[in-house]
């Protein structure tokens, strides 16, 4: 499997570390909403199809990437820096609805 790092270009899977479900939002640090914390830490979306997930290019530039990858075919259809994806959180929700 290859992931196209926006900085390094297409690189082999062995250079990356999977950081899981990219649909989760960390509650506000001061939040005491236990439900929200539980959901953030433990609950995962297991999409069959295009899945939004975070990978670290740990064997390269070490950036975290927001990757859209099909869990049925392993085809990667989109990659962006996670830090840029941060301020487009609403976008991400829309994408996980299946539009992407």
């Amino acid at each position, binding site marked *: 499997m290859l992931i196209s790092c926006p900085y390094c270009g297409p690189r082999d899977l062995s250079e990356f570390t999977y950081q899981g479900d990219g649909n989760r939002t960390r509650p506000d*640090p001061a939040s005491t909403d236990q439900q929200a914390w539980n959901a953030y*830490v433990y609950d995962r979306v297991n999409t069959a199809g295009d899945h939004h997930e975070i990978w670290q290019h740990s064997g390269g530039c070490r950036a975290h990437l927001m990757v859209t990858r099909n869990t049925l075919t392993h085809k990667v259809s989109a990659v962006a820096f996670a830090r840029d994806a*941060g301020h487009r959180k609403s976008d991400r929700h829309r994408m996980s609805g299946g539009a992407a």
Partner: protein
Amino acid sequence: MSPRRTDSGGRIDRQRSIRFTFDGKPFTGYPGDTLASALLASGVSLFGRSFKYHRPRGVMTAGVDEPNALVTVLKGGVREPNIPATLLEIYDGLTVVSQNHFPSLGFDIGATNQLGGKLLGAGFYYKTFIGPVIGPLKGTRFWMFCEYFIRRAAGLGRAGNEKDTARYERINAFCDVLVVGSGPAGLMAAKTAAESGKRVVFADLEPRLGGSANWSGETIDGMPAADWAEAAVTELRQNANVRLLPRTTVWGYYDGNTLAALERVADHKPNPGKGEPRHRYWTIRAEAVVLATGAFERPLVFPGNDRPGVMLASAAERYAAEFGVLPGRKVVVFTNNDSAYATAAALKKAGAGIAAIVDVRREVSEAAHAAALSVGGEFLAGHAVVATEGGAKLSGIKVQIFDAATGALSGEPRSIEADCLIVSGGWSPVIHLASQAGINPQWDDARQAFLPPQPTQNWVGAGAFNGSFSTEEALAEGHAAACQAAGTVDGLIEALPEVETPALRSHPAPVFEIKAKGKAFVDFQHDVTADDVRLAYREGFVSVEHLKRYTTLGMATDQGKTSNVPGLAIMAEALGKPIPDVGTTRFRPPFSAVSLGSLAAERYGDLKPERLTPMHDWHIEHNATMYPVGLWFRPMIYGDPGETVEQAYVREAKATRETAGIVDVSTLGKIAVQGPDAAEFLDRVYTNVFSTLAIGKARYGLMLREDGLAMDDGTTWRLGQNDFLMTTTTANAGKVMQHLEYLLDVIWPDLKVQLTSVTDQWAGAAIGGPKAREILASCVTGTAVDNEALQFMGIVHGEIAGAPVMICRLSFSGEMAFEVYSGACHGCHVWKALMQAGKPFGLVPYGLEALGTLRIEKGHVTGAEIDGRTTGRDLHLDWMLSKKKPFIGSAMMDREGLMAEDRIKLVGVISLDNRPLNGGAHIVEENNPDEPRNSIGHITAVCYSPALGKYIGLALVKGGKSRHGSRAFVADPLRKRFGPVEIVSHHFFDPEGKRMHG
């Protein structure tokens, strides 16, 4: 001259002969021969024994699809089992033995298994050996008793225990176009892609590129096909953009157009060159792939079809044309399609006699008819072979009239003398690679074959792979495929070569099996018969995948290359369903078996790199016993001659408490945390506050995971306003780094913080003990190290023996102690200077054992206690959990499960019987040495404490502090230890910390 060798032709070099042995007997062959061709040429017909019934088996194919002729290659004491003789190129000194027989290949007692044939049918094991309900062999015992004997019969070849001394390597390749298969289709594709200027990798599993052109006898561009292929290959060889990979099997098609291939670099050589690997494992990342892997010919299923002397038609033709070997002198051809007629003609031309052509079809094409007449012999259309005759060698066959539509036989069986029966049951495109991604291939009725699935990756097919079985089509498709793969879709790059070929069609009649009396084999290696398939059907194992698993059809080393389609056709017939409704089993990598060594490649014999500290060589020179910690090596003890481990660490620990000790702490994880928001960031990731830390000071910190459990601890030093140096435990350095990077990159991208691993930048030496300060003072320049200049947790900069150092006064040992950091390349220099300075004071280097002892005495926690299941509170670090701010884990750390009363918590234990304790021992309340039960916790770390004069340990125990002063028992049944302990505070020694504050 050997009995079966022709006078001329083929790829062999008759000028030079090669000597090898098979089962100890000497043989000769020629360069270019495979073991199969050389042995056939010498008149050998018996190559091996089948798996279950130990039936005698000969050679069935000439290539990678061989199910029968498997042998073991010996290289000194190293054994390589199950190698198809058809792929094994001979060389001088090659030593081969046959396998799966006792006492010999010719006479094999295991063949008596055949007597139980009906009993040993599919599913046999599941129905028996269940055993009695009572007695010593009850339950599963009876099966295990039987299994012992059954297991002796397992497997084919024998592997050795001796280490293989060969070298294996891997290499990464990138290309625009990868062409797999070098037949007419692949060659044309490679030529086309190369001409368009693309970077091409061109692989074929055979030693000689050219595929079927090497033996087809056709004419391409006015020359013999083999010459045309050679010319094309020569041209490609000169192109710098093309890498030719003969002897290279592309065996896996993985995601992202990543293909795995095995190059057999030196298997055909008596000895590899200096530094040359035996196998090279290629991972090829290709923009586009052309799959031109050809087609496998299929056998027909009929009684006695496994007798040595029965061979696939294309194999017979290859032996004659490519190796100059006649598979027989008196040949019968048995076919359901036209392609075998060309074979008959080729064999005839090479000097064999054609005794008969038996065709299941009553009507055949004119071209076939003409071919039949031209080769002579009987022409038996509308007939079938119903039996073979002879022992371990074919002597004849029986034929009967056959109705292809109904499968009915009629008339009296008649014998025909023959020493070779060549069989063609049609062709199956080699769609394995295309199918590995998991898409189902499509059945094609006209060709009676599965055609490749719709691409799920960027590949284009060409030639017989597509079911296009003529050479014209192969050339045209090869060209077109390359144009598509290279992105030059718009047209011909060059004129296609002209082909002369007989007008024979390889589309077979839909006949797979001749039902007559006797064992008719479908899977030759696993001895799966047509009756086994029908038994599976009767017992409801009708899905092809059930069929496979119930009968083991297609599970042998050849993975059903010849047997899958006939097998499922028989099942389809039994079910009364068309073949596409039955489907085919799933294709999986590898396409053909690959050595485990090649996949380990450069890591064969060298599993992991070693991480060494700058002082590593010094430690070795000073008798350190090294201890692996992750990839690092650290001194465990510096043993004096004759000392036990305990004596050594006790001496080291004692010296540290009495005078001074020094330990290499370079392996501690070190992370530079820099930037205007660094302090804020640390406040968020540590449970305690760091923003208040003064420049030039260090602080101990605890980190939790998001789920509120303890993750790691360490000190962080503030070197500047925006500049921190964080230390982590050795084991967790990578994990902590990733954790922090994740938070910065994903959660708080707005924070201006830079993280850099500087573990390797700094060498660290911790020096502690009553004399530590004096020692430092005697060798440090540029700074004072007295109480005033260097307070507890203070940092100063200076020099030792000319090298810049950074010194922090902090203590893990509980003594007055300092960590001295220097640039790694100066590390050993500084270490030696410290040792030198310490000499007059009795400074002693100490290792992990003493380090552990000192920390246990002080009750400091490490990885054994922060084991991913404990909380800060479990470890009595509550005082570090700031209430003033949220931090990672703060929201989750108060959940009921993490606050529960019955959690195990940190305590100290003292052995009351003065015997050593063991890590991993449990603590129980009841004095029941024989059958201890009801663990209340366990011991995490142990030592003999020189300070206390006792064997002590740290433990995690239910109730924690409430048990202080109480008595319990250590239960260690695995090491046969039981005895009383006292549970005490984990602060064994100097709980007030007077010593380190000085």
